[in-house]
């Protein structure tokens, strides 16, 4: 392997680099979405690409989410590799049909004759007073959809490597970008590289309890683990990275080792990622468990505007610590 320089970059810069590298490398890659052109996107992820690649490959659209994803899917059927931006994940309902009934099923229902290699990037997650329609964690909406891939990075380096891997991949991919992570900085290798899909990362090793999380919740889990260490609790933290199809092997292997599991997810508990992982662990690790699995998840309510109320709804470091303490009893 060639030695590549590692620089400090924000999550947004890392995503931007990935898009740039993918477009440079493959003329079939193009971008489509609202205000992604000259403006560079609501969060600046596509900044500079319109000037570099032109408006044919960085395509601004009207507020037409179904048409954005429909266009992406149709062109992908023809061999292009579109990367679409849906400004906020909350708007995915507008193109749900295109993703769920069209992109995700196409390869299967047409017996492998078509594929839909699209990447749909979208900003998700709460914690900033965005209110009920700009704060949701939507992975649960798509968890039950065979054929769809859900990728969810937590660090700038993974954001770049996973985005490049997603663009290379032949499946339709929902690429979740948590808004609270956009401005974080981390080490990002220079140049083109991919981070494997369907592979979780053990981001902290421990022996007493396994904490499984994704996106922003990985950071809450790591902060919780650091504090728990002061109490003498050694927590292992797993960053899922691909939410569907997820890396069951890494999760199960870790829980078999530690004997305790806390699963963390920002979305409501019912029918969400935390519930899915909890069921997996119950099924696969029942006889290894020293305590029942605990789900630390969003409360069963929409996300309110007031920061004081939002804090009550969303999981955070304190709630993760509480969860771990309860399985350590």
């Amino acid at each position, binding site marked *: 392997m060639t030695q590549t320089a590692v620089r400090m970059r924000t999550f947004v810069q890392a995503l931007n680099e990935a898009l740039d590298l993918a477009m440079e490398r493959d003329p079939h890659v193009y971008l489509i979405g609202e205000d992604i052109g000259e403006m560079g996107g609501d969060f600046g992820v596509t900044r500079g690409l319109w000037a570099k690649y032109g408006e044919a490959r960085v395509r601004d659209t009207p507020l037409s989410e179904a048409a954005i994803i429909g*266009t992406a899917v149709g*062109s992908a059927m023809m061999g292009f590799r579109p990367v679409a931006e849906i400004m906020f994940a909350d708007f995915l309902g507008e193109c749900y049909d295109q993703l769920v009934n069209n992109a995700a099923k196409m390869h299967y229902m047409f017996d492998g004759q*078509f594929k839909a290699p699209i990447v749909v990037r979208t900003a998700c997650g709460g914690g900033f007073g965005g209110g009920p329609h700009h704060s949701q964690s939507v992975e649960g909406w798509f968890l039950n959809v065979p054929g769809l891939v859900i990728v969810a990075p937590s660090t700038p380096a993974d954001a770049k490597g996973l985005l490049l891997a997603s663009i290379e991949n032949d499946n339709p991919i929902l690429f979740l970008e948590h808004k609270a992570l956009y401005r974080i900085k981390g080490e990002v290798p220079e140049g083109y590289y991919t981070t494997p899909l369907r592979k979780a990362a053990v981001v902290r090793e421990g022996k007493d309890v396994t904490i499984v999380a994704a996106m922003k919740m990985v950071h809450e889990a790591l902060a919780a683990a650091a504090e728990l260490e002061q109490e003498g609790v050694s927590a292992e933290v797993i960053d899922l990275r691909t939410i569907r199809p997820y890396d069951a092997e890494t999760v199960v292997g870790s829980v078999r080792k530690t004997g305790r599991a806390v699963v963390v997810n920002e979305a409501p508990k019912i029918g969400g990622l935390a519930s899915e992982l909890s069921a997996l662990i119950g099924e696969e690790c029942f006889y290894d468990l020293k305590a029942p699995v605990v789900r630390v998840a969003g409360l069963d309510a929409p996300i309110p505007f007031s920061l004081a109320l939002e804090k009550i709804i969303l999981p955070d470091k304190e709630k993760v610590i509480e969860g771990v303490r309860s399985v350590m009893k």
Partner: protein
Amino acid sequence: MALDIETLVDLYRDMWLIRAFEFGLEREFKKGNVPGMLHTGVGQEATQAALAAHLKATDAFFPDHRCHGINALAEEKHQGDGERIMAELFGRATGVCSGKGGSLHSANPKVGNFGDNAVEGSYMATVLGVALAFQMRGQPNVACCIIGDGTVGRGEFHESLNMAAIWKLPVFYACVNNGYAISTPVGKAHASADIVDLARGYGFPCEQVDGNDIEAAYEAVQKAVEHIRAGQGPYFLEFKTWRWQGIFSGEFRPPEEVRYWKEERDPIKLARQKILERGSLSAADLDRIEAEVKAQIEEWIEFAKASPPPDPAKATADVYVGW
């Protein structure tokens, strides 16, 4: 302008193929040999034959739920095996999608068939991307979506026509206005019973044609595809027609309306009169064409029935590409 007699006779034969296909299928459906739901294109043969005649294998079309006939014609014309559409509807291994798609999801990219989507009209959005691909590659091809009058109620109708207009995409909107969406009359569902009125605001050519007159339909489609192939952007064509099938199998429309369309406006009967008026073919000649096509359909049905069900491994195959 009158069509030359060879073309007219070919279209007559294609119209009979569509009708025989649907009648044969309906018979087998009633016997329980065809699973699922069945929507037929009987009554709309002139519209369908005109579309099939002008679409090339290198074009792309998204068929609707009544397009078995177009699918079979495309298969026959470009691959020589229309029976694979029949087998698909029977859910057999020899079908175009190995029986995984059925009536509402038959596709074959080799003949330009990009597949129906049973969420009616979703491909009004998808067609944009196919058209964009043609445009980006500079290919003079047509991306056609076939939509019913009811389907025009989808929000995607606006999103699609608007985006096709601003990007001048090579999209051909073929709107089959057969008067009803299940039980709802077109005039009750839309601000205008003439769908073309709804399309005009987007600023590209929009025409209406008698969808039961094969000559008029053929020429209207020709004009549309020529416009699109010349790089002049989208085109909207509304075919005024009527489907013989009521709600699934029940009839709910006024008896006089049913009589009028079946007796006075039957597209096949009208085409037959036109051909006979030209004088070069006899009634016996036309009867022979009809009998040949019907025999062929029976062979297709036999082929489908004799075909095995899909390999059980297909049940979970191809959920993901490469995984």
